[in-house]
């Protein structure tokens, strides 16, 4: 079988279903479909989200970097670094995430676990999407053009090679997890 499989083929759509199902199960079992768990990350009271994300980054990144070095992958999928857009957009996203209590993926998943306010916020997301499309010509000129560095990786803007980044990230994640496990309060108690 030739890889990668076309996402517009029938098999591609079947895989989308399988991947989505697994993603939804993982989000729910990781308790990130729970408003309280997400909001309590920002309040430094529940580290579940941080544990999930850091583990995903380290495990995912080590595997993807390894597959890349074997030449198994077509290439990286790096998004543009538009510095002003990332900072402003990221900040708006952070405000929205604290108020809504979900991000787009966990919000969609939370609707399916019975969260009615997540569904209301999904309606808000659709309005946000329309607002963005309408304001896009202006945003493109005024914001996305500022600090546009293209598709860059940390290994390209620092003299630190790939392997050292991964050793450092594994060490940081390990250190963070060790500190969290030592804190007296059980890290997953949401209050």
């Amino acid at each position: 079988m030739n890889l990668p499989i076309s996402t517009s083929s029938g098999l591609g759509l079947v895989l989308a279903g399988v991947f989505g199902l697994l993603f939804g199960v993982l989000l729910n079992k990781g308790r990130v479909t729970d408003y309280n768990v997400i909001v309590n990350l920002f309040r430094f009271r529940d580290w579940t989200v941080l544990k999930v994300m850091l583990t995903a980054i380290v495990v995912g990144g080590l595997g993807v970097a390894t597959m890349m070095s074997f030449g198994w992958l077509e290439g990286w999928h790096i998004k543009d670094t538009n510095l002003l857009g990332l900072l402003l957009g990221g900040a708006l996203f952070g405000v929205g995430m604290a108020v809504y209590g979900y991000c787009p993926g966990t919000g969609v998943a939370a609707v399916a676990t019975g969260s009615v306010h997540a569904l209301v916020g999904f309606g808000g997301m659709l309005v946000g999407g329309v607002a963005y499309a309408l304001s896009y010509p202006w945003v493109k000129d005024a914001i996305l053009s500022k600090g546009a560095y293209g598709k860059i990786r940390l290994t390209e803007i620092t003299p630190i090679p790939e392997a050292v980044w991964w050793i450092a990230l594994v060490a940081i994640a390990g250190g963070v997890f060790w500190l969290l496990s030592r804190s007296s309060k059980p890290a997953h108690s949401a209050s």
Partner: protein
Amino acid sequence: MEKQPCCEIGSFPRIKSAAWSPYIVGAGIGILSWLVFLLVNKPIGMSTEVSKFSGWLAGIFVGMDTVTENAYWASKTPAFGYSTVFLIATAVGAFISSKLGGTFKKELVPRVWQEHHGSSVGKRFVAAFIGGALLLYGARMAGGCTSGHGISGTLQLAVSGWVFFIAMFAAGVVTAKLMFRKKAS
């Protein structure tokens, strides 16, 4: 039925458990990203598809021709495809998981919100709506969300992913600080 005490690292992840260890879930998402990269040559992402949904919805009111004339939707044309299936399947997966795990629950006003802002459903709904709108507007301006930047971007050591992650976290912490200052009487 007695529920598993949440998230012991050693406990085997069963679909009927209420929750799994966050480390097992994180590793699972990491391995899922290997498969997605390898099999379909795509990163995991969500917010592009939500903005396509909004384009599709706008199309019902103003016609799809008007929608595709828009400079943004011209490049992200709303159409049924891989990402549509992925989004719907994510919801189905969370539904099955919460039903079997016994955590499915109709929730109008979540606990932490109620402790600080009272039990008014209307107030929570207005906040959720505004929060959702800011969330997607920000995601599109940044070119991704927690999935596309926060996981798929960071794990490729993309500068954009790490900048987004830090900006998002800082803004979230400040907002939560302001929003949850005092308890509701």
